[in-house]
């Protein structure tokens, strides 16, 4: 326990450092201690979310994006999850060291989260209206009626049709996309300072998705909200993100501004990812994918964890030496020993594609 935080924890406002970044992760580790072994889901993640900005977290499925988010929220079940190391600082205060009672006041109100799996994340036995309204009741002490009225507004905001009639309905009565929107409505209900959105729009059609992203963008501008957007939809990322962090095997393998990532990825995994997007001109061809299986988190490969799948791999450096996050530019980094080669190559390809290629829809 860091004494300085402890000493200042009596006075909440004093402890928060207005100069510090809104949310800062430093060397966060999360492991699941199971009978079969220790699964190291997050292995030293560090990133920063600035007020009013969006950090998109991309990455392989199973690379630890959701676990990181849950660690920030402090909702991992212990056991099996343990955080052996790392800090999560909100305006300079380490959330991980905060007494549970105090930390609760941050959840929902200052940091909110949209869960990936909307159906199981909603309580099956309460009307959705009550679940949204609970935010107002718990944090703002509103009456049941007033909370419900606000819940209807929130549902309207996320464009759920006939919200007034359907506030009393239960989660299972809604479609997948509607549930997801209810989660979103709940998360933004209290205008949090940080919003962690874990794949918030996967179940939404593009028109609604656009509207929801607009809504979030608006909120962000109005309230200066910082957002962590976990998504697989590169289109959405391209539209809204300011910065991007790419995760692989529990680590950040590349971090850059949105423009850099798309035009000249410096990590082979990122590059592979971008190449996997389906394109209309290749309709009858196989999609390109990063070959190979994701690593077993109980036995993460030595050296660069990506090396078994990496086309740029060179023995022995890649198999023995873990690449640090090489700093490429200000706030830009890539964890590849040969990032320069990769970057150069992708830049060249990008230019070519600009000339002749076309996207799926354009």
């Amino acid at each position, binding site marked *: 326990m860091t004494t300085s935080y402890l000493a200042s924890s009596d006075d909440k406002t004093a402890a928060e450092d207005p100069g510090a970044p809104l949310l800062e992760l430093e060397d966060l580790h999360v492991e699941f201690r199971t009978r079969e072994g220790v699964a190291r889901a997050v292995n030293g993640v560090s990133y920063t979310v600035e007020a009013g900005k969006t950090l998109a977290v991309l990455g392989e499925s199973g690379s630890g994006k959701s676990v990181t988010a849950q660690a920030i929220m402090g909702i991992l079940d212990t056991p099996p999850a343990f955080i052996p190391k790392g800090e999560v600082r909100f305006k300079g205060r380490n959330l991980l060291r905060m007494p549970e009672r105090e930390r609760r*006041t941050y*959840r929902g109100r200052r940091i909110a*989260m949209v869960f990936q799996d909307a159906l*199981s*994340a*909603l309580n*099956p*036995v309460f009307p959705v209206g009550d679940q949204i309204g*609970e935010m107002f009741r718990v944090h703002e002490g509103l009456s049941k009626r007033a909370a419900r009225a606000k819940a209807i507004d929130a549902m309207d905001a996320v464009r759920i049709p006939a919200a007034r009639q359907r506030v009393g309905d239960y989660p*299972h009565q809604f479609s997948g996309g509607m549930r997801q929107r209810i989660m979103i409505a709940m998360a933004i209900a209290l205008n949090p300072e940080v919003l962690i959105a874990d794949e918030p729009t996967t179940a939404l059609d593009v028109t609604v998705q656009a509207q929801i992203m607009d809504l979030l963008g608006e909120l962000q501008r109005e309230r200066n909200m910082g957002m962590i957007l976990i998504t697989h939809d590169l289109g959405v990322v391209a539209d809204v993100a300011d910065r991007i962090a790419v995760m692989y095997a529990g680590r950040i393998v590349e971090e850059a501004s949105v423009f850099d990532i798309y035009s000249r990825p410096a990590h082979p995994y990122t590059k592979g990812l971008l190449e996997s997007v389906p394109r209309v001109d290749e309709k009858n061809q196989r999609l390109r994918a990063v070959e190979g299986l994701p690593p077993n988190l109980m036995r993460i490969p030595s050296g660069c964890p990506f090396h078994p799948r990496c086309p740029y791999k060179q023995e022995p450096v890649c198999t023995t030496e873990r690449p640090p996050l090489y700093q490429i530019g200000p706030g830009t980094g890539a964890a590849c020993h040969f990032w320069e080669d990769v970057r150069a190559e992708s830049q060249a390809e990008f230019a070519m594609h600009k000339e002749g290629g076309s996207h799926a829809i354009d």
Partner: protein
Amino acid sequence: MGRYTARRLLQIIPVLFGTTLLIFAMVYALPGDKVQRISGEKKPDPARVLYLRHKYNLDDPLVVQYGKYVGKLASGDFGETRNQRPVTDLLKEEYPVSLKLGLVGILFEAAIGLGVGIIAGLKRNGLFDRTVLITTLVLVSIPSFVICFVLQLLVGVKWRGFFHLPVSGIRDGFPEAFILPGFCVSLLGLAVLSRLTRTTLIENLRSDYVRTAVAKGVPRRRIITVHTLRNTMIPIITQIGADLSSIMGTAVVTETVFNLPGVGQQMAQSVRAADAPVIVGIVTLLVLIYAFLNLVIDLMYAVLDPRIRYD
């Protein structure tokens, strides 16, 4: 749902027939001479034997006896007790007593069982959890007669000045007269209920929606009482319903110790005397009560968990 309820209510008719027939057959099957049973240890004299055989149609085969009984029942006549009192009077006097006892017992059981179970569930395998387990088990292992009696002795006699609780009879009225006996009967079901609460709570505490509630910043107490409890309520209310049945079944001890004129002790006496009209009357009403109770509980399932549909 309306149709379901209607269907359930209709099903009560065959249930009543089944119950009365079953009880009738069971009383019929009781060993020993019926007349002798009604007379206790005294040898009935021949004139009385004739009288009783005639009165209870004892010479008829079971079906005929039953038919005659049901015929009377159809006109609302529950028959007479062996002491020649109308069974309806008996039911009117004794049912309210037992129902009040059951109600108070269930309230105690629910309050204590849920409370204790929740705390034990939150601190799984902790000291409290273990203590509760052992305590409730000791309560299960010691006959309720002893427990009730000790309670009566301590609270009613030794600490009378402190508690001011009546310890016998119902003349002090509801709820005073029922507090101690109610508490006593509640002890029986406490072990199961607290354990059940604890277990279902543990199962649910790890679900995703609890995690969501935590992420929403909902206070712990509210998470338990509002979010988790409702999801765990179905087996719990089922158990509480079943406990009402066992309370009524074992009320004989409590009713005897606390001198409550309820159906429990009546049933014990009547079974011994093979007093069919009384037993059938009591059981029929009891089954009716359970049929309604279980219907309400089943409907509660759908209220507690909207995913449950009846149609």
